[in-house]
């Protein structure tokens, strides 16, 4: 029992891409895109909160979670191309995209080369703050995020990190770090919400506000008392904000 309703595998991006599904088939689709080293697993609490109205689909990008990847790590464009292929293959283009952390960079990159697939966007804790684009500061910030998260997140992430492996983790991190996300934000022409936990050290208020202002149709939401991984530690709040976007 994983708590998900179904697991589907789709031939896309040269592999079998895995996605976990929860929610009614006739509801609006919400596609979740995980962050660095993570997978569909840490979207489960969020999916549970949203499953009464929407069909939540959490996809594993190649090399993460249950999707086997090629030996080498993919860069941001590689990941977003894989996401685009999967969206086309499953006919899920234009559905709401919820990204967490590094997943936001993948979603934003998707807007650059496949705008026709882009639906309304929820950017939850978008990385990388351009004022702290170094390995050391990012890891220090991630370390300080620990107390703001639910304790069991560690166990979930440990399994995901094992799935992805240290080499892919480090290589993907380098690609994410080098990604000039702030220059691509203007391509996101769909309604977008930047959601940040008010206690998130990885994404400070100033950076989140900057991201929101660079989006053509963006606004900022901040959840008091929450950290970086809202989909796991403050799922009800993220679900409420996503629902507001769905109703719009």
């Amino acid at each position, binding site marked *: 029992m994983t708590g998900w309703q179904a697991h589907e595998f789709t031939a896309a991006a040269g592999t079998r891409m895995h996605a976990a599904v929860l929610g009614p088939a006739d509801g609006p689709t919400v596609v979740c895109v995980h962050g660095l080293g993570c997978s569909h697993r840490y979207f489960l609490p969020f999916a549970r909160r949203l499953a009464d109205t929407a069909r939540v689909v959490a996809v594993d990008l190649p090399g993460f979670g249950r999707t086997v990847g090629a030996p080498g790590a993919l860069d941001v464009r590689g990941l977003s191309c894989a996401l685009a292929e999967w969206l086309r293959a499953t006919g899920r283009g234009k559905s709401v995209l919820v990204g967490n952390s590094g997943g936001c960079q993948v979603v934003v990159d998707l807007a650059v080369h496949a705008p026709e697939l882009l639906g309304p966007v929820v950017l939850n804790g978008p990385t990388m703050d351009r004022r702290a684009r170094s390995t050391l500061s990012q890891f220090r910030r991630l370390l300080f995020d620990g107390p703001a998260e639910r304790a069991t997140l560690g166990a979930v992430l440990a399994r995901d990190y094992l799935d992805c492996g240290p080499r892919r983790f480090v290589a993907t991190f380098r690609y994410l770090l080098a990604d000039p996300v702030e220059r691509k934000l203007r391509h996101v022409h769909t309604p977008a*919400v930047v959601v940040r936990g*008010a206690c998130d050290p990885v994404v400070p208020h100033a950076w989140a506000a900057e991201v929101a202002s660079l989006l053509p149709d963006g606004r900022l939401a*901040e*959840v*008091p*008392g929450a950290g970086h991984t809202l989909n796991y530690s403050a799922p009800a*709040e993220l679900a*409420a904000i996503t629902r507001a976007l769905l109703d719009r």
Partner: protein
Amino acid sequence: MRVRDSVVVITGASSGIGRATAVAFARKGAAVVLAARGKEALEHAAQECENLGAQSLTVPVDVTDAAAVDELARQAVERFGRIDVWVNAAAVTAFAPFQEIPLPDFRRILDVNVMGYVHGARAALPHLREQGRGVLVNVSSVVGHVTQPYTHAYVMSKFAIRALSGSLRQELRLDGARGVDVCTVLPATIDTPLFQHSANYTGRKALAMPPVYSPERVAKTIVGVVRRPRREVVAGPAGRGMILQSKLMPGLMERVMARQVDRSHLSRTEPAPATAGNLYAPRPGPGSAHGGWHGKRKTAVRRLALAGVAAGGMTVLVRRRLR
């Protein structure tokens, strides 16, 4: 409930008790959503909260518009993800002999003070219940227990608010929504601009009837009931005495209150022109929590006097014993 990092929506946040409450919650580290009609005053109140390091959102809204109040709740959730506390504090009043107050004014007061709270509760409770926890605070008044002459609509509305809170508590209990609390706060006379903003057809200037307490004191009480929810809490000890008296000797209290209002609520020397006050349009300007009735100073003076009397009494007692 923990106040730090909670999301608090306050109606009537541009002035008086609502504004002081917003500032008090901001000081405790809550995110505040300020709602009122007056845009400029709201912005100033929000600035005050942000200077204390709090996150804030302002939503200009007339609480008599149910759709607008629903929209207020929606915007709060859109911005902060949830609503933990909803404070209904928007109120207006009029001073007038019963036959002389224009009926539309009478209706308007009931509309704002009663239906405004109903709209607030209807917008807030679905969110609180879905989350399984939260507090709805309805600001009534000591005159929700004790009647007053010349302010019929206001007194009626404050009685009605207590009734609304009670009925809601009962319904929530029957529905098994244990984490959701409804609390009524009953302030005594508070140093707010209410008296300057009120409609007045008496020909006499409306004054704050002593003893006057500061709006910060009510704000503290409201933060207190959110921390530890209770059914009804009085803010201002004189109010507690008045409520007790009205329960023990209702006839006497009615007569005393009538005389008291005639003597000290309406000025016997200063005249005032007939006005609809802020019933139909908010007062322009930055607004304020205080009304210039010196609530803080007067409380301090009262305390000093009480301490003096107590000290005097003790001295007499001690001397007698030593004799």
